[in-house]
């Protein structure tokens, strides 16, 4: 089983769109997939039209795997389930701090889930907290979407430094450019130069800025489902194919 988080300290960089579309493509490929919406904003849950049950409060969810499974909802798509966000998830950090081994809660929660799922995607909230540390520790790969601008790259560097300071495995981080606009020279320069200079691993696929992706809020479907022939859909497919290589045939650096 593989656990993939989509994470960035900055918000509005295309995390949820990536989580939703990649989870869809994973399920489409035949992998039993679970998308966990840990962001209390609940955008991923909104896209899939799922609501949490009242029993899916954070205190209960983290107690045991059975509670996670009981609160999972089937999506409209074969092989794809959602753990919808609950408002109580805004208190994730507070609840985690009270646990015996606060840094290992999420990892232990997902242990043994391979009988139910092949891939788990986690849509993470945009901050750097105990929950983030938990998710990073539990994940096999952490996808970091970046808008190709200076500030975005700086935040990525800070994340990389944070990972190294905490003695975590930095090769888990897979950055990729998101909301890329070819006509902007800053974007083009960043995409061309930053990967070699950054010291981290960058996927080669850049997700373009696209109204089709923005309209996900209206269609409430993943882009490959609503607009399978769009360049945005093709980009997510390429991203998924690149991610698969890292998950199933890891490339050593």
């Amino acid at each position, binding site marked *: 089983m593989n656990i993939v988080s989509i994470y960035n300290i900055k918000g509005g960089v295309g995390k949820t769109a990536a989580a939703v579309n990649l989870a869809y493509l994973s399920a489409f490929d*035949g992998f039993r997939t679970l998308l966990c919406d840990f962001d209390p904003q609940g955008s991923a849950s909104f896209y899939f039209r799922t609501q949490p049950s009242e029993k899916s409060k954070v205190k209960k969810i983290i107690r045991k795997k059975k509670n996670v499974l009981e*609160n*999972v*909802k*089937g999506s409209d798509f*074969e092989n794809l*389930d959602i753990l919808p966000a609950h408002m109580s998830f805004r208190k994730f950090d507070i609840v985690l701090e009270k646990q015996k081994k606060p840094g290992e809660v999420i990892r232990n929660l997902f242990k043994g889930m391979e009988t139910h799922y092949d891939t788990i995607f986690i849509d993470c909230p945009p901050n750097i907290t105990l929950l983030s540390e938990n998710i990073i520790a539990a994940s096999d790969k952490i996808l970091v979407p970046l808008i190709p601008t200076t500030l975005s790259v700086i935040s990525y560097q800070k994340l990389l430094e944070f990972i190294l300071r905490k003695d975590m495995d930095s090769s888990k981080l897979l950055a990729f450019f998101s909301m890329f606009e070819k006509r902007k020279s800053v974007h083009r320069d960043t995409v061309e130069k930053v990967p070699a200079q950054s010291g981290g691993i960058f996927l080669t696929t850049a997700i373009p800025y696209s109204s089709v992706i923005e309209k996900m809020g209206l269609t409430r479907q993943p882009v490959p489902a609503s607009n399978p022939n769009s360049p945005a859909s093709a980009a997510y497919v390429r991203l998924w194919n690149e991610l698969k290589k890292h998950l199933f045939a890891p490339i050593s650096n």
Partner: protein
Amino acid sequence: MKYIFEENTQDKIVAAISSAVCVKSNAAAKKTIVFLDTLDKRLMKSSMALIQSGKDYELHDFDISKPVLKVALRRKTLPKLWQDFPEGVFRETLKNTIDFRALVKLTEAELDIKSYNVLDAAKKTVLRFSFEKLFITTEDGNIKIIDRALIIRPVKGYDDFKKKILPVIAENGVNKARDERHGFEVLLNNLGLHMGTVRPIEISSPDISTAEAVLEIHRYLFQKMQEHERGVLLDVDSECLHDFRVCVRKIRSALSQVKDVFDSEVLSPYKDNFKEIGRITNKTRDLDVYLLKKDYYLSILPEALRPVLERFFRKLRTKGKLESKKLRSYLLTEEYAGFKKEWEDFLYLKKDCIGKNACKPAVVTARKYIRKSYKTVMLKGRSISPSSIDDELHELRIECKKLRYLMDFFSPLFLERGIKNLTEQLKKLQDCLGVFNDLRVQQDSLFEKLHEVKHYKHDPLFLAAAIGGLLTHIDMEKRKTRMAFAEIFKEFSSRKNETLFEKLLIED
């Protein structure tokens, strides 16, 4: 969840459900579906079915009664091998299940579906239901309905909607189906095809007489032989011929090993005929084995020698096709069909028990012959030393085969005595002897080819060098296998296994 409903009540049921929840109707679909599997039913043994409808292929899992994987594939002809499918989980799953075996069409049916989605307030699908009718058109043009049901598929986490709908449909004459099998499974079962492990030879009762047991064994083997014969005629894959030959070999073994059941004069022409069938298939099989080894042979030679060997294999392939054609012609002769009819009549028409073993309990006869065969294997095995010639290992291999066949034939009578465990022990020994024999046969044939090289027009020296390289490698492998044999036989003939055989054969 499968439900039965009265005919012509579909609209009424949908109206009733719509009064309780929001229902979205989908377009009715009518599809022709084709079921594919290997001739040895590898998918069915794994409780799966490969179903094609237009460009869509799905792997249906009968244990959970739903499709688990789907893929789209546009082709003019049906796919034959796992490699014909696009890369992905579907292809990998198929590869792991069917391996090198080719897919054939098992049967075809029509499926009418009218499906609906139940939506919640956010327009999310929370439950799916469909009216499904599976039917076939018989040879005389009539429609035969295989299955007709209302299928309800709740979406995970939305049980409330299921709870709302069930009372509504119950009020409208819908009842839970007693037969929970999916329509596809009903169809395949009706054809005599069953999910899970294909049943071994079944001996209908533990008190059965030897004559009846032997007849049941032969009926099963004959049925299998004809299934594989169809594969040979259709040229499905080379393993069909191998499986066909194994059946013929088993029939011959059953005829010769379990003696004094029927009149030996009556059996004699059948024995001769089966021997002839075995002989006729030899050449085609030998060439198939060569061709199967082609990639392996090429991989052990230096690059400079590969082109000449490739040319050599191309000639073999042409020869193989010719031999295969001759074989298929033979299988289509009236003479062969006549022989099969006579054998079938023998197996199914009443006959008198005339041998001294005929009326004895099968378990008594089985013990006698298994014991005898086991002793022969132990005697021959123990007499093999490092200085023994290859033929001695070949003879031991033949005796192991005879023992194995006897154990397989009569295994239903000894299941509680651990016969499966002993068969596995014997299999390890057989595998080793099989590898040794394969290498020996390859070596002998390559030596023969070496003598023919001087007649070869293109680069005979290179071909001789290539064959020389192969012979050297094969000889090394043969010696390694010979060394491994000693350890493996030691394990087989251990006191532990001897005790297990004694327990197997002890009388009640």
